[in-house]
């Protein structure tokens, strides 16, 4: 009898030692996409930088909804029913699915442009719930001011986006709210896939002075073709995402998605260290992470001039085919 009890105690101890200490993090994203994968990498980097070892201290269960909203919901339910201690949801639909079903554990959202409008949190900043996260909203009116400063004669700004992406629709609405005070008119240039995007550039492009691209996933995926089409029309592209700008943009002012991941990872680390989501603040990517990208080669090719004080401020410059970081 004593022996049996002892064996049971020992087994219990071993089991608890094996499972104790390791925190399980479930990470879900809607689709395989370079920017979203960069977010994941950033999260992992931040957790590792804080001194946690992936695999021993922290176990990561990475799930991908393969573009299906149904799968995103299935993953959320899976996390809810399994022993996952912290849930990280990248993108709006994945986060919406998780927030609905997981109420007893921390949910950290990432790369959601409009978490309030998406019904994830009541307000930006501190919230009295289990949900906290990082928004990838970009400073749209600053972008428009930048356009106005570089191209003082510009009147019509074409916003290229996919009307099926809620992030892009939010940013476009913001641009439409900000444009009148700057004397600009926003022209919709929409496409739901790569070929429609290029068609939009070719058909609407001639009527606009500058093309503006937000954090649109569809535009990001077809940026090479869009950049080429815009160059044929001699229209400059100003982008809110550095990686979009890299592939054919004249000016980019935004952040790396890796940085969005790092910021998200910092929130996860705080939770790992024992804080509650209600003690943390949901925030936007801070101004210190905003980078300015300028392609001087393209500037010459388009025959435009950018004020020197703006060029001086650039963090990344492309000159003679070389990317220079400052």
């Amino acid at each position, binding site marked *: 009898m004593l022996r049996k009890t002892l064996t049971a105690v020992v087994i219990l101890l071993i089991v608890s030692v094996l499972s104790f200490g390791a925190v399980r993090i479930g990470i879900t994203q809607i689709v395989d996409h370079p920017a979203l994968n960069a977010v994941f990498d950033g999260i992992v980097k931040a957790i590792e930088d804080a001194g946690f070892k992936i695999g021993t201290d922290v176990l990561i269960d990475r799930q991908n909804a393969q573009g299906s909203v149904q799968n995103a*919901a299935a993953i959320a339910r899976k996390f*809810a029913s399994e022993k996952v201690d912290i849930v990280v949801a990248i993108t709006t639909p994945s986060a*919406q699915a998780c927030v609905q079903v997981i109420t007893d554990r921390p949910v950290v959202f990432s790369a959601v442009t409009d978490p309030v409008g998406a019904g994830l949190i009541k307000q930006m900043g501190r919230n009295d719930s289990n949900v906290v996260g990082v928004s990838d909203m970009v*400073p749209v009116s600053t972008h428009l001011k930048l356009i106005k400063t570089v191209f003082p004669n510009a009147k019509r700004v074409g916003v290229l986006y996919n009307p099926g992406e809620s992030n892009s629709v939010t940013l476009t609405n913001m641009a439409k*709210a900000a444009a009148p005070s700057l004397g600009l008119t926003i022209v919709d240039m929409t496409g739901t896939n790569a070929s429609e995007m290029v068609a939009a550039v070719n058909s609407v492009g001639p009527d606009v002075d500058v093309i503006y691209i937000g954090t649109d996933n569809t535009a990001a995926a077809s940026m090479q073709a869009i950049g080429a089409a815009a160059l044929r029309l001699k229209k400059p592209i100003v982008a809110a995402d550095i990686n979009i700008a890299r592939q054919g943009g004249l000016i980019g002012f935004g952040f790396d998605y890796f940085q969005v991941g790092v910021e998200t990872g910092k929130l996860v680390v705080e939770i790992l260290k024992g804080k509650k989501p209600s003690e943390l603040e949901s925030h936007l990517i801070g101004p210190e992470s905003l980078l300015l990208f300028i392609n001087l080669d393209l500037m010459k090719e388009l025959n435009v001039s950018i004020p020197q004080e703006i060029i001086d401020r650039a963090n990344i410059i492309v000159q003679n085919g070389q990317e220079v970081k400052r």
Partner: protein
Amino acid sequence: MIAILEQGLLLALAAMGVYISFRLVDLPDLTPDGSYIVGGAVVAALLRSGHGWVSSVFLAALAASAAGFITALISTRFKIHTLLASIMVMTGLYSVAIRIMNSPNLPIPRFSTEKVLSYEQIVGKTPLDDILGGLENFQYEKEGVKAAIVPFNNKADGHDLFLIVLFVVAIGFLLWLFLRTELGTMLRGYGRNRFAVKVLGVNPNFFALMGLTVANFLVGLSGALFSMYSGFADVNMGAGMVVVCLASVILGEIIFGSREFAYGLFFPVVGAVVYQILLSLAMKYGYRIGFRPSDMKLLTAMFVVSVIAARRFKKSEVTV
């Protein structure tokens, strides 16, 4: 496991719809990819404007059934194959859904949220403010979200499952009753032999209209319930719905063989649940044996084709 059952049964309603169009009335119809979104979009829009969930769900399914009606109308009036007609309707519904929601994604939240502000209004300044000038008279404000009342509680206590089972059983029973009536019998007859119905003196087009309307009503119902269940409607949520439902129907047929329960309405229900179980197994263990997330669609497609091919070998009966 409860969650898998719940999702499987929600899918079952759409699978029943696809079963009716593909099998019972034998009219291949791709409208569901669009009508599923319409169901979700209408229910989200109505719930947010304060309507009760019962009427919202009913109206959502009705809107989706209208999509099926239009497909059938185009097909019978202009003598276009239903496959082609339905692709057109499905494509158009993408835009219609965004119109209904006035946005590509509409949450059905549990709590009210405050106003949405822009980056500059929240953060206050950006690194270029000294060159470009700071905030001037720019104000962006979007209304927050109002809380909506939905029947699901999203807890794994069986409450949601009970509700969904109730739904599926009730709808299945109603359909079974309908298919037993004279009209229902003729509808099934239309699927077997178009000309036989004509001999009875009824316009066969009437049955095409009825079949696709009923089928898409079910699909819309499924979309509406799924939206309430998962808390949002998204314009991309219908993509690949027909293929998934077809896979469910075929799975059900394999499981039950040639035996028929309730005119086969039982197949898609069981098939959808099994499909959901297989999907979750693939999600859980697939990565360990080398799957990539992007392989899932290929696997589904290969599965449907191989099952159809296997059945062709067995007996030279024409399917799909």
